Each structure stands twice: as C-alpha cells, then as structure tokens.
C-alpha cells in the first residue's frame, strides 16, 4: 500500500473529491491578492552588465534562458541545463552562479555580469580574457565563457591565488576537451604570476 497521502494531503483529497478540484487556473485567479505575499510580476527590470534592461520574464524562467533568448546574450552557453557543467556560469553580485539554475526573478535587485560585459568600453579585453588567449586556454570554446567568469570571480576576490586555489575555484566548470591545465595557466598569468 502506498502511503502517498499524508494527513494534510488526505484531507485535501477529501475536499477535492467531495467538492471540485482546485484547479491550476483557480490558483492563478487568486494571484492579485497574493502579490502582497510575494507573487511575482512578469515585466521586470534586471541589471545586466551595468545596464538596466526591461524584460518580460515568466515566473519560472531561468536566467540562462532570459540572457540567451530575451537579451540575445548568447555568450552564456547551455551545456547541460542542470548545473552539472558550468558552461552557463555568470556572476551575480560578483559571485559565480549557474545561470541555468537561477531564476531570473531572483536577480531583480542584483547585478548580473556575463562574458559580454567584461571588455572595457574601449574594447580592451579583461586580463583573464587576454591571458586565456595568450595561454591558448580554450579548445572547442563552448565551456570558455563559463571558465572566464569563474576565473574573473576568483581574481576579484583573491588577486594572487596559488595554482591549487585556482584549481579549486575553477572546479565547478567542466571542460570536455580537457583544457584544464591551460585554463589554470591562464588564471595564473592573469594574476600576474606567469606560469
């Protein structure tokens, strides 16, 4: 027998079966009064790469989806969409996040930085980007934007990491080509500690 019903669930089932099922639409129609309790609106502003962008965001939408599909910031890649590869890594208030596993609504009051936001206004590459070029860090490049963002976050917090610290900090980014060594070389170079 399946104890799939807890007490509350059982009582709910009773109500549902004796009256009428409280349908999804029923919940939605009750939204207006829920707003005060934190129900989200669709049209929101988010701060991406220093710019405030107005965008229509579904409640369940992930940041990776918003960036790629709504804001055309396709530098952020979706490798697995499950937080298992790191290709979608972006910075939120300076900290690395998997944007595939972050709700866009949760970054309304925070600063999002993607790989597109690293270059200076005159086009100068971020030191991490330059170092990754100099060390020929990327291979296929699909994981690279995520690797760049993890390295940027590390160096902003710890400008001269040891190689082991860099390895730990970068460890949430997979690279199927196996370019880890060259990425670490890039991080060390970007920190001014030439490998």
């Amino acid at each position, binding site marked *: 027998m399946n104890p799939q019903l807890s007490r509350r669930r059982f009582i709910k089932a009773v109500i549902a079966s004796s009256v009428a099922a409280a349908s999804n639409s029923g919940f939605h129609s009750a939204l207006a009064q829920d707003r005060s309790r934190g129900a989200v609106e669709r049209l929101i502003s988010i701060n991406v790469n220093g710019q405030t962008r107005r965008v229509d965001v579904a409640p369940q939408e992930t940041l990776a989806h918003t960036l790629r599909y709504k804001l055309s910031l396709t530098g952020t890649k979706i490798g697995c969409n499950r937080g298992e590869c790191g290709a979608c890594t972006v910075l939120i208030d300076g900290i690395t*996040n998997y944007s*595939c596993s972050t709700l866009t609504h949760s970054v309304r009051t925070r600063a999002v930085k993607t790989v597109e936001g690293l270059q200076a206004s005159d086009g100068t590459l971020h030191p991490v980007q330059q170092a990754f070029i100099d060390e020929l860090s990327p291979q296929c490049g699909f994981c690279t934007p995520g690797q760049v963002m993890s390295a940027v976050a590390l160096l902003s917090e710890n400008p001269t990491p040891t190689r082991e610290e860099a390895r730990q900090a970068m460890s949430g980014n997979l690279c199927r080509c196996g370019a880890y060594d060259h990425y670490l070389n890039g991080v060390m170079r970007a920190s001014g500690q030439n490998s």
Partner: protein
Amino acid sequence: MASFDVMPDVQLYQPVELDDALRLAEQYGDGGWVLGGGQDTYGWLKDRAKNPQAMIDLTGVEGLRGIRETEDGIEIGATTTLREIIRNERINSDYSLLAQAAGRVASPQIRNVGTLGGNLSQDARCWYYRRGLACYRAGGNLCYADGPEAMNREHAVLGASRCVAVSPSDTATAMVALEATMIVASTTGQRSVAAEDFFAGPDTHITQMTTLEPGEILTAVRIPSKWAGKRFYFEKVADRDVWDFALVSIAVAMSMDGDSIAESRFVCGGVACKPHRLRNVESAVRGKSLSDENADAVAPLASAGTKPLNYNHFKLPLMENLVRRAMRG
C-alpha cells in the same frame, strides 16, 4: 518519453516575511515547493518529474539567513548558503566538521547558492527515482533499484524498507554528529527536532527524506556548544571530487579525556536512507585511545547489520576503512 529540458509553468512567490511563506506553504500544501538555492529543484521541474503548482522562494526572508550566537552554541539560518558556512570563522574554529562537510558539497557554484536547509532536506539521488519513474518513493508500488539485475552501486546497505535509496546530504552527517537541533515552523507554531530524528527512513516516510510535513518549513539549525572545538574527522569518498555524491562518507565528533575518547558520534553517509549512526562503534571506542591497533579493532563493527545489494557490497569495507581512518592517531 520527451526528455524535457525547460522550466514548465509554475507560479513563483518571493515572500519577505516568514509568516507569508508559512501561509503560502500551508495554502499550497503538497502543491507548494519550498525553494532555497534551488539546486535540487530545477532539475526535477525541468524533467517534469515533479509538478508543483508554486515555488515558494525563501531566500528573500531576511530572518532565515545568517549565523548567530545562541546561549548554547550557534544557530544557522536555513537559507544561509554553504559558501557562508565554509567561510565563517566561528564554524571553522569550533565546528570545522561542518565546514569540511559543506566544503565537499557539489561544486563551487552550487555551494555559492545552495543553502544549508536545502542541502539537509535534498531528495534522494537514486537514478531510477531521478529518472521520474513511479517507484515507491514517487508514490508507486515497486522499487526498480532492488531487482535481481538492478544497477544499485550507490544504494543502501542499511535501513532499507522497500526503497533502497540513500541520504545524499554531506552536511546531514555532520549535523547528526554535532547533535544539532532543527527548528521547524508552520502556521501553527514552531517545533524543534533532533537532527537524528529530522531525517526519515523509508519504513516510515517512503516518499520523503525528512519528517517535514507539507506546510512546514525548516527555519534554522542549532548546534550546541557540547561539541565545539572537539576532535573531528570528515571524509567523503566519491567517484569524482566535484559534483558527485558520497559513495560512503563519515563524520565523526570525539571528545577526548586525555588520550582516550570520552564520548563520540560516528555517522556514515551514503549507506542508508538517513545519516547512519554507528552506535556499536561509539560504545566500543569509549575509553579507548586513538591508535592503529584500536582502529583495527573497532573497524569491523562499522559494517554490522548491513545487507548489500547487487553492486554495493564494497560499501562494507569502505565503511570499515573510514572508521579505521577516523580512529588513527
């Protein structure tokens, strides 16, 4: 089978007051999904294997976050991130066991947003269950992971009852070892429950990992001063050193009386559906010193009462070895 990949329709609430969150949890009951860092949420939803009506995001509730001193130890808010725990001075100096365990969770990005509450109450990782199959744990009427040919390397060797999934949480073992107390709130009030009783096995809660009822929210974890600064041992053996869950892990807290162990807590992860206390080891080591000889003497007790499945009998020597390592000087 569709291999779904994007978030389906689901309502989102981002309350800023705990009371609102509790009312929402009550209102939605089973259809509500309480959200911390979300790292064990979005996969379920994207797969459409779980279909809640609403997500209740707790991360905006200020009171649920942070690490505070209490009269007897510390209190950690449920939405405190693992990152904050790993970096907290007090935890590192007095409860390094927890910092170590939290430091071995998943990957940096997941630790950056993953919350203590979420890590403690995360769902089982049995691959059959995660595929969305209607097994016992999903309300069905059989276990796919315990068939004659089932692939169950990562499953339970202890405490199975129909379901053979294991507790995947790294911090859970540490919390049981530290004799933490969970603070659980609902619209009808607050209760506190010992960490050991917070986690639930399939014999009583086959569809849940904890004793949390729908409508209840884990708000904080209190760690008593009893074990502050004591001797700790943590080790997690996993295939990969990032992302992967423990094949077997161990969290040990020992209070020493001179050279000998006055009291201890040995807790294994990855072997049962909840953190598994090695009580026979605990009583065997009482009064003993840390040494290779004593380690070898008590290690075999670790696997007492185990019942391996097709592919997981390696967990028995592994449990013994981890106890051995904890007991070395």
